[in-house]
């Protein structure tokens, strides 16, 4: 009989009002396999005022709510089990408990219900968040709830947001003759808010035939002025994308710039060093998770020096074991390091398996911050900063340390440097180690945005070479300029001609540029480098 009541209510398509059914029905609806019944139950619970409602809905969202075959509902948290209806702990966990499943429609309704309950929460912050959620959701049925909240709200910021949410919600309702003024007001309010969401709602109004002409025109005007605004921001946004893409290229290429610049070695295994850096990140994360779980969020920071040392050490080993036998024959080092890259790839495949591994992104690197009309994603921002730090650090090493001095000397004139007493083999080994270590750092960064699999290195190697050659071998400023130019160029072209064509266009432009300037943008001058 009770469920019959629910079904009838749903049949009418109405949002259930309090009192339409006793709240106990609502609880049993939550355990239903039918989405319609669950939706009804959620709306009912939200307005029921039942003390358990908030807890139950939260448990539902977090997938802690379980249904027993007899219709009983339980909240399970670890080992403890609580009866959802009463909030009392149960001694014995009933058999056959199944988690209550959600889908996106229910999740949306749940978020709305939770937000509408939170509107009356004591903390202004919670209420503000709830208003935000309702604004984003702009469910027409929420108008009465919002009106009620507005009537009791004191906090100015929350009030503003609530008004905006109400405006959005009003516009989401179908247009009617007598609501013109109210709607016009809502259009103005939303136009003032701005942003993609407001534009979405207003665009809907602007296209609607049922709308009164003046409302429609106001919406159209608002949309076109917003579009202008959004376009301006999208330029800034694209510039950020370009910088961020450029910073990834820069990180991948700095190591090469060192090995290439100082030693003239084309290190085809450079990408594999990046890959190893990414795997080191993963191993560090795993180790910290097992040993000191509290440090997990900063595992990535721990991974930075570890990756540098591991990859740098491997670089020194490679130089001592392989590259040093091939000096004077740089193009053959290309072949040998290509062979090495095959071996490293296959070795990682044998040890860690061929599939992607999941490197965690800590919470402080996830998500984005809104700056005006653009979104700055935190992981990209972090990589941008990281790339700047790495480049700055490298500059310091090259300019302020004896090793840097020796490296620059070897770059400019190897023979002369050797005659002056510099142990060039040692400088070579350390330079190669430094290059490999930098690749390891790039690997740490890339693990936050890309796949980590044995193939990781392959996808960066060609781009890195392009950057180094385009910038001019042996010149870090050139590498920086080239990375940013390629990153920006790619991102400017991409929206216009598509990702594939943009990439091709960039490659062709670089080829043509090299024809005009055979030694890149910033050629190194000196006796030794002229061949």
């Amino acid at each position, binding site marked *: 009989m009770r469920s019959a009541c629910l079904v009838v209510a749903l049949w009418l398509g109405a949002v259930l009002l309090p009192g339409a059914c006793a709240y106990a029905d609502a609880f049993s609806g939550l355990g239903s396999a039918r989405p319609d019944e669950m939706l009804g139950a959620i709306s009912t619970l939200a307005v029921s005022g039942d003390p358990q409602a908030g807890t139950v809905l939260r448990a539902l969202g977090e997938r802690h709510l379980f249904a027993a075959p007899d219709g009983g509902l339980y909240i399970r948290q670890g080992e403890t089990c609580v009866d959802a209806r009463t909030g009392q702990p149960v001694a014995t966990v009933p058999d056959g408990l199944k988690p209550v499943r959600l889908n996106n429609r229910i999740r949306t309704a749940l978020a709305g219900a939770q937000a509408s309950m939170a509107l009356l929460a004591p903390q202004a912050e919670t209420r503000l968040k709830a208003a935000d959620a309702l604004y984003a959701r702009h469910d027409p049925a929420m108008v009465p709830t919002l009106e009620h909240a507005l009537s009791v709200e004191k906090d100015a910021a929350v009030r503003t947001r609530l008004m905006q949410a109400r405006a959005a919600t009003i516009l989401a309702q179908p247009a009617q003759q007598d609501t013109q003024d109210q709607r016009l007001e809502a259009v103005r309010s939303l136009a003032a808010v701005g942003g993609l969401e407001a534009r979405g709602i207003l665009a809907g109004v602007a296209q609607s035939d049922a709308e009164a002409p003046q409302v429609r025109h106001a919406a159209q005007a608002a949309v076109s002025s917003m579009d202008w605004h959004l376009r301006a921001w999208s330029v800034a946004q694209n510039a950020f994308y370009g910088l961020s893409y450029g910073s990834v290229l820069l990180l991948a290429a700095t190591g090469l710039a060192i090995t*290439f610049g100082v030693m*003239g070695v*084309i290190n*085809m295994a450079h990408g594999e060093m990046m890959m190893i850096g990414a795997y080191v990140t993963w191993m560090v994360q795993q180790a910290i998770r097992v040993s000191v779980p509290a440090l997990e969020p900063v595992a990535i920071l721990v991974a930075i020096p570890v990756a540098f040392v591991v990859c740098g050490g491997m670089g020194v080993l490679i130089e001592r074991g*392989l590259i040093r*036998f*091939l000096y*004077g*024959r*740089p*193009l*053959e*080092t*290309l*072949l*040998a390091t*290509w*062979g*090495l*890259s*095959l*071996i490293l*790839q*296959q*070795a990682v495949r*044998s040890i860690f398996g061929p599939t992607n591994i999941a490197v965690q992104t800590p919470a402080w690197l996830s998500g984005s911050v809104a700056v005006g009309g653009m979104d700055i994603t935190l992981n990209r921002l972090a990589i941008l900063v990281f790339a700047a730090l790495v480049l700055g650090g490298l500059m310091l090493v090259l300019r302020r340390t004896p090793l840097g001095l020796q490296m620059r000397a070897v770059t400019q004139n190897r023979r002369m440097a050797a005659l002056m007493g510099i142990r060039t083999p040692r400088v070579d080994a350390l330079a190669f180690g430094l290059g490999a270590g930098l690749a390891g750092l790039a690997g740490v960064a890339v693990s936050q945005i890309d796949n980590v699999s044995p193939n990781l290195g392959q996808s960066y190697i*060609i781009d890195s*070479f*392009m950057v180094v*050659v385009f910038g001019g*071998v042996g010149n870090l400023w050139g590498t920086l300029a080239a990375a940013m130019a390629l990153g920006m160029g790619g991102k400017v072209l991409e929206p216009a001609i598509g990702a*594939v*064509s943009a*990439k*091709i266009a960039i*490659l*062709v432009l*670089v*080829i*043509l540029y*090299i*024809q*005009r300037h*055979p*030694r*890149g943008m910033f050629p190194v001058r000196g006796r030794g480098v*002229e*061949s």
Partner: protein
Amino acid sequence: MNPFSVHGPRNLRGVIWMAVAVVVVAGGLAMASLLPEGSPFHASAFVVSLAGKYLAYAMLALSVDLVWGFAGILTLGHAAFFALGGYAMGMYLMREIGARGVYGNASLPDFMIFLSWKSLPWYWWGSEHFAWAALLVVAVPGLLAGVFGWLAFRSRVSGVYLSIITQALTYALMLAFFQNGLGFGGNNGLTDFKDILGADLHAPLTRAVLLVVTGVLLAASLLAARFVVASRFGHLLVAVRDAENRTRFLGYRPDQVKLLVWVFSAMVAGLGGALYVTQVGIINPGEFAPANSIESVIWVAVGGRGTLCGAVLGAILVNLGKTLFTAWLPEFWLYGLGFLFIGTTLFLPQGIMGLLRHVRKPPAEEVTPEVSDTQGGEA
């Protein structure tokens, strides 16, 4: 010391031997494939198609050796010319299918139909004629190489810069051919060929003839290459390789010398690609992959750079090894390949040919001219 002495022009006898051996082996296998299946000398279609593939790869290796071994241009993009030749032939083979495609459309290849093309794009014009296709096979790679080389050599792009932009060239072409909008079948490329010049591609006789043709063309390319490098022009080439500036100061034009051999080499590669497609039965953008070009350089290194014969030998041996080990040691063959590259560069700087000469003559007899140290960075 420059490990690559100017022994190339002196190995006429070796080249002739190699050319004859290639023709004899190809002819022998072709005949053996026509024997009845029960015969102890019967060669299966598998062996014939493998041999055809190796010989086509040998042509690519030969073309790489011409520019790397004799002009000192380390190309990391020669597979692009090979693939372009392959596509030119593939277009013809595609048109030969006619109405036998799955949609039964006589004028449009299958992939165009399901991508809703209404008519052939202009660059497919004439592709139904074998003669036109045969012309394109050498003309397209030649033309691209001509434009690219003219720009690059004129402005004296050299060394690693040149290597990297050849790699960029093949990478850009790969991305372009991956695009379905380009009209070459996208990622799938061109495949499911039926006939060539009216002869069934899957018939044993056609296969045998194709193998012989490949063998003969490889032998001819080998002799032509040998003719080029042994001529006065060839000496100039080696001079450019070993001391470009000195040659320039003597009044020669190194850019023109390099351009000529570069274009010739691209044409040989294109021819190899065309022969490859007829026997392998598929051409797709994967052939443009930078890894393929690097591998072809490695064949030359394994065989012995600057020897012509070594390129052919290296291509055949490395690919034979790849075929065997991908079947026997499917999970470990990449280690083998990797160590092969490292071992060759470390212990066999002159490849198999160097080893052979070493065995035949005491090493003291080898006189290699010392080249200037600054060139070492570029060779």
